[in-house]
């Protein structure tokens, strides 16, 4: 178990290292002089030179990178060109809002996805099954931002249940979270359904039936726990997807999260901020993946065993 976690962390460190190179190189991949793009067409050559020097772009690449890294380690992600504030401060300010949105969305995705999946599996090949899986295909096909707009039109404009507000309270999070949740639920519901159908045909389910257990106990205690393993993996993958999806959804609902920050940064060509966001999101994503793997080994006792056998 320990060995497993250590291995996982080590390989993640390598990936994070790679992401740092990628985000470092971002600025160098820009066709033309990034500094000129940043300061604008009207800038004097002195201004350009000053900023070039300030950002260290006149030094050799390797030196630049080692500076970049050593600054990162000290928590210095650079300074936003637009606001003049530290990039990390900007990100840390906005990130909780994205987390709030993504986790509320995840909650909905799990509730919707798992209940639809279990329902479809229990009534396999019936109308309920067809309906649930049709919704799942629709969920993959509908643009999340349009779904968000539709929900606003229905529930805010027409019914006025959730007024369009500026805040980020519980009432305000519901619509964006449902939007994210519906889109995120499709894979969970498909997987849950197929997993349940498969597990319900297993020998140990027959054993459970032979014991005289109630159908509900069989479905939830015996079958569902086994389905949970792949589902948790997918949920883990979905978290990352949801963070990405949140970027778009934030724009629909004017949510002050990382997404709006990133889009603003790209539109105003605030490269240090863009670099910071890319790196930050990469690290968050990798960390989530590690946590999912660890959770995985807790749910499935066999994972631990296979790791032990390997080592």
């Amino acid at each position, binding site marked *: 178990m320990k060995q497993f976690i250590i291995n996982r962390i080590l390989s993640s460190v390598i990936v994070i290292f790679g992401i740092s190179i990628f985000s470092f190189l971002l600025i160098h991949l820009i066709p033309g002089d990034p500094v000129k793009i940043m300061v604008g067409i009207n800038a004097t050559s002195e201004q350009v030179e000053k900023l070039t020097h300030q950002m260290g772009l006149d030094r050799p690449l390797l030196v630049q990178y080692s500076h970049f890294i050593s600054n990162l380690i000290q928590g210095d992600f650079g300074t936003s060109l637009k606001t003049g504030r530290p990039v990390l401060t900007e990100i840390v300010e906005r990130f909780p809002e994205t987390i709030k949105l993504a986790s509320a969305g995840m909650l909905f995705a799990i509730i919707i996805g798992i209940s639809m999946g279990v329902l479809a599996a229990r009534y396999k090949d019936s109308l309920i099954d067809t309906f649930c899986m049709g919704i799942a295909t629709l969920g993959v096909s509908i643009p999340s931002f349009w779904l968000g707009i539709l929900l606003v039109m229905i529930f805010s404009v027409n019914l006025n249940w959730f007024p369009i507000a500026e805040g980020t309270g519980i009432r305000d999070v519901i619509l964006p979270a449902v939007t994210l949740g519906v889109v995120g639920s499709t894979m969970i519901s498909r997987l849950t359904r197929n997993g349940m159908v498969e597990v319900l*045909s*297993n*020998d*140990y389910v*027959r*054993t*459970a*039936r*032979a*014991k*005289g*257990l*109630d159908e509900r*106990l069989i479905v939830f*205690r*015996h079958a569902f*726990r*086994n389905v949970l*393993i792949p589902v948790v993996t997918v949920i883990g993958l979905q978290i990352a997807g949801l963070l990405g999806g949140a970027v778009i959804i934030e724009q629909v609902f004017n949510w002050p999260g990382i997404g709006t920050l990133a889009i603003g940064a790209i539109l105003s060509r605030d490269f240090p901020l863009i670099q910071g966001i890319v790196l930050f999101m990469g690290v968050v994503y990798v960390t989530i993946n590690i946590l999912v793997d660890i959770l995985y080994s807790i*749910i*499935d*006792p*066999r994972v631990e*065993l296979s790791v032990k056998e390997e080592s």
Partner: protein
Amino acid sequence: MENVLEVKELTTQFKGKVGYLTVVDKVDFTVRKGEVMGIVGESGCGKSVTSLSILQLLDKKGKVSGGEIRFKDIDLLKQGEKELRKIRGKEISMIFQDPMTSLNPVLTIGKQIGEIIVKHEKQKGSNVKSKVVELLQLVGIPRANELFHEYPHRLSGGMKQRVMIAMAIACNPSLLIADEPTTALDVTIQAQILDLLRSLKDDMDMSILLITHDLGVVAEICDRVVVMYAGQVVETTDSRTLLRNPRHPYTTGLIESTPQQSTIGKRLKSIPGQVPTPDEYGMGCRFADRCPKAMEICNHGVPPLLMIDENTSCRCWLYKEEEHGV
């Protein structure tokens, strides 16, 4: 002697590509109190389906379409799902062929045995635990206390089957249905499990319905035997008679293809061909194609199951003739 289980004209069908296929065809047998009744036959002849039909554990494609299954005083086929649940695991319990897949990999052993006690005996907490540990000791599992919290994958096949048995006897059932309980196990372990079953049967005063393809197992443990072929009963008798004086050519073939002391050094005989599938059943005797004694009549009609003496019946035209001659 009192009958615990009486199966009459049991017919089970499976949904096929075109209509229903009859997999178990009017099967009759009884299980008496305190005896071990065996069902023997090759794979694909409907033994397992018969056993699953009794507790109605068939999957969605299969259904019992006729007959009567009388357990003590009730007809199991007339019971609703709710009543059946009270019988399953408590009055009649079951163990299966593959202990590796028959235990749930994500629940502890204690939990899996415990839940049957919780369900049927309405016990709770530490009572359940002590009962489970007691059961584990009873089926010969060492370190029962520690294993309580373990997951099945920690155990060997034999140990898992012991756990299955512990589960099955948890509520003192009157009938234990064992579907190929030793097939997936090593030979040495097989003998241990059979010994265990026999001693449990005696101690707990239960009857066992044992499904097997292995005549060795029959010789070892069974009191009486039903031989099944292609969904039908072809011979019923006590196991001693069966092994010494087989009536049906199929039984003879089975015995001759089983390695024995007397066959050492000789080439083992085998029955040519294979069991027909339900969609291949013809008009005549289903064994006729493979039968060394097949006659013209065998292709024209299914022979009836004929009482030959007090405890022996056989489904073969050979004996029909004999009777006519008498």
